[in-house]
């Protein structure tokens, strides 16, 4: 006999829905009290919040400029972060200088907050180099394009910090789509197993190119981590204060030696996946409109205006600063030098490699023979 029994107990075994999003600033700019998270941002009001606001405005302005540069043929590609400013700025500013970052390709605001110089932000996208900066100069690895690969690097780095006896934390950024990759799940296993001081920061921007998050995850993404033994937080990714608070909380755990934490920042990709993408093929304009109403900058602006910290005058000065940054960014981008012909052979190895050395010499001789090297040719 094979009876069919109602599945109540199985359903009950699913975890209950996660706590509502952590939110400290609602879309209208009202400050929402939260006894757990408020203390993490008690230093951020008035002028401090105004500086945060300026960062948000500036990174959006850079992003818009980069898109324009791409349209003008000055960049090969650009992955806009429009709509994700709060998730990136809020989390980046929570970090200590010695904390190390392993990001994906869209975290240009994180890099900006980290002090990466403006033209270095676009070297990869202009195509003059495979990376823009020295990771050790800003404690941030250069963009990772292979989805999810960087999350394992973060775990290794974090375990290395613990071996070194320092309380440095590591944070890794990735998208909702990335949560499907084996590497990201392995990273959670390894992080939990070694109690690694690492923060998994997932920007759930609802899309992986054209694929909605529902294809990657049947449950809120934040629910995945606890099953690996990693506590998680689900935060309004368009609320810069909430993101700052949540990330500080997670980093505190890491600095204290309490192991990994997973953060899902719920946000929305307001632009195309990259400048090559055509979202009109798959995005419902209504959905986009709904999210436009939750804009991460508008709510800070509303809040600051209500608080009388932001006036038309300060707003104009912030906008002017942003324009200046954008102009410097553009100029720096256009001034980036093109790679020299033989540079393709540089840095393949750290130590001499006889095979490659021979190939390089051959190519050098060839280039000289056709007059394409200075001092060249018979």
């Amino acid at each position, binding site marked *: 006999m094979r009876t069919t029994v109602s599945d109540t107990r199985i359903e009950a075994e699913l975890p209950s829905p996660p706590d509502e999003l952590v939110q400290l600033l609602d879309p209208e700019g009202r400050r929402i009290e939260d006894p757990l998270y408020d203390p993490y941002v008690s230093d951020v009001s008035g002028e401090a919040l105004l500086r945060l606001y300026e960062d948000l405005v500036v990174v959006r302005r850079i992003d818009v400029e980069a898109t324009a540069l791409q349209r003008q043929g000055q960049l090969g*590609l650009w992955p806009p972060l429009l709509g994700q400013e709060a998730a990136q700025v809020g989390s980046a500013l929570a970090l200590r200088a010695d904390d190390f970052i392993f990001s994906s390709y869209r975290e240009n605001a994180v890099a900006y907050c980290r002090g990466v110089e403006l033209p270095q932000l676009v070297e990869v996208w202009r195509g003059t180099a495979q990376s823009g900066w020295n990771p050790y100069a800003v404690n941030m690895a250069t963009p990772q394009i292979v989805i999810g690969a960087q999350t394992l690097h973060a775990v290794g780095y974090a375990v290395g910090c613990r071996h070194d006896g320092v309380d440095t934390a590591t944070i890794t950024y990735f998208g909702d789509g990335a949560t499907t990759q084996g590497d990201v799940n392995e990273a959670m296993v390894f992080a939990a197993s070694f109690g690694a001081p690492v923060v998994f920061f997932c920007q759930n921007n609802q899309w992986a190119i054209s694929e909605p998050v529902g294809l990657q995850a049947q449950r809120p993404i934040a629910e995945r981590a606890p099953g690996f033994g990693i506590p998680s937080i689900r935060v309004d990714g368009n609320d810069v204060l909430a993101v700052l608070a949540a990330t500080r909380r997670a980093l505190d755990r890491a600095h204290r030696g309490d192991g990994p934490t997973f953060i899902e920042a719920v946000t929305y990709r307001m632009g195309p996946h990259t400048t090559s993408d055509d979202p009109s093929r798959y995005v419902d304009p209504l959905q986009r409109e709904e999210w436009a109403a939750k804009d991460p900058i508008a709510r800070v602006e509303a809040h600051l205006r209500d608080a009388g910290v932001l006036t038309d005058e300060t707003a104009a000065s912030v906008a002017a600063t942003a324009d200046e940054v954008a102009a410097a960014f553009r100029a720096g981008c256009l001034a980036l030098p093109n790679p020299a012909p033989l540079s393709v052979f540089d840095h393949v190895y750290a130590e001499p490699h006889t095979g490659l050395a021979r190939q390089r010499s051959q190519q050098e001789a060839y280039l000289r023979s056709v007059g394409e090297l200075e001092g060249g040719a018979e």
Partner: protein
Amino acid sequence: MTELTLAKAVNSGLRRALADDDRVVLLGEDIGPLGGVFRVTDGLQRDFGTDRVMDMPLAESGIIGMAVGLAYRGFRPVCEIQFDGFIYPAFDQIVAQVAKLHYRTRGAVRMPITIRVPFGGGIGAVEHHSESPEAYFAHTAGLRVVTCSTPQDAHTMIRQAIACDDPVLFFEPKRRYWTKGEVDEDADFPFDRARVLLEGADVTIVAYGPLVATAIDAAIAAGDEGTSVEVIDLRSLSPLDLDTVEASVRKTGRLVITHEAAQFGGLGAEIAASITDRCFLYLEAAPARVTGFDTPYPSARAEEHFLPDLDRILDAVDRVLGRQNALTGWSAS
């Protein structure tokens, strides 16, 4: 006959395969409403439904692993890997499962899986979007590896790949996606044979995929200077149609091979070694290879310094003809 771009020719080939055999299913990232990042699957989900054309969660190992299960069940899965550089997460499923299952089960289980991979450089892309990983798969027993250089071949060969009972890596030369040409849907020709595109008497140039057009340009330029060059488009990389290459080299005595992949351990080595073995007494010079360098693919603005081009091919033609040039001292002396 219709004029189509190479991308559209693959699209029409996929469409025919879907229409002709209801066991054919398409799997990939963004192949549904978006039609793939190169629009190769444009309109197919709309016309054949979400069960036949499936957007996949973002994991290449998952996609290929799932295709294995579908093949077990008698389907003919056609997987799209979005870019060459993203095939590596699926490497284990491809070389340890897809390639070996027919052997492992003594023929009981067939793996008629086609893996479509837009490959190669020349489009000014960021890292991981310009790679030529074909040698890894050609070295893997149990797989077939093919590539196309014209819309006609693209159309016919994708249908042949899907109809083949073996797993096929189908490399699409992405910088030629916008090349136009006549396509006859009813054309047919052997799947695993090379094609002599230009006949010539002095030197044989062997190319495949994106560099076929470059090889033809080089042959024409050489012809203008009085050298008669034969150009062979390999089309199939595993197996290689060495009979065709051998016949040509017996005639010309000189061989130049070109590909974008790194030289060291690339297919050029296999072709050179096999043809030397078959034609030793006919060769007037050692076969020359004109390839990408043994470096990672460089940044977009450096790719012109990396990719084989007309001048480098002509330089090699000169060399196998025994004309002194900058590299003469480097080879046989």
